[in-house]
């Protein structure tokens, strides 16, 4: 079963706008990670937030984690057409990752 569920399933925005994706999960975790997948390619790691952290930044990415609500959000600021991809959250428990179903982001030029 999927540990993480993402919302929305699809998101379409204009270049320059911000994109927000949400992830909910069910069990206690060590950390939560976000990955990006371009069409027909493998996944690429974007950012990791530990269970004792609440917010983390990396370039145009901002991730929040609320362990009391078992939820996380990924914000991409000033989006670009090249950000068009699928984004997956993944919860880490010991040696394994469990992935959500993903958000397909389309950034229109």
């Amino acid at each position: 079963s999927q540990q993480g569920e993402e919302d929305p399933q699809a998101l379409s925005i204009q270049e320059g706008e911000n994109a927000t994706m949400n992830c909910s999960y069910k069990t206690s975790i060590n950390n939560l990670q976000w990955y990006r997948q371009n069409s027909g390619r493998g996944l690429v790691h974007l950012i990791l937030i530990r269970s004792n952290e609440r917010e983390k930044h990396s370039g145009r990415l901002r991730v929040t984690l609320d362990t009391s609500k078992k939820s996380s959000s990924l914000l991409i600021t000033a989006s670009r057409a090249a950000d068009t991809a699928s984004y997956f959250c993944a919860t880490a428990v010991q040696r394994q990752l469990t992935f959500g179903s993903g958000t397909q982001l389309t950034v229109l030029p």
Partner: protein
Amino acid sequence: NAGVTQTPKFRVLKTGQSMTLLCAQDMNHEYMYWYRQDPGMGLRLIHYSVGEGTTAKGEVPDGYNVSRLKKQNFLLGLESAAPSQTSVYFCASRKSGGPDNEQFFGPGTRLTVL
């Protein structure tokens, strides 16, 4: 460094045929993973390995076998392919240690079982 590579990139099988997917990594990672990705879904873990000579079951192991005879290679076998195994298969690897190490993914193998 090539990172994580997978062969083949594409394969079409008939029901009942067997095949082996090869994953290789040149990063000296201890842990390796096999996932499958179906349309509209995230990745699901099939099997994984925490070191040479070790393997363990993931979420969806039925119908698959794996071997890790060399640290750099992780093989995924389908003994008798079924149409339900039509999917894109991804291999990943990561360093050992705590759970904060990211996974590095290969480009995937697209398998169709007729």
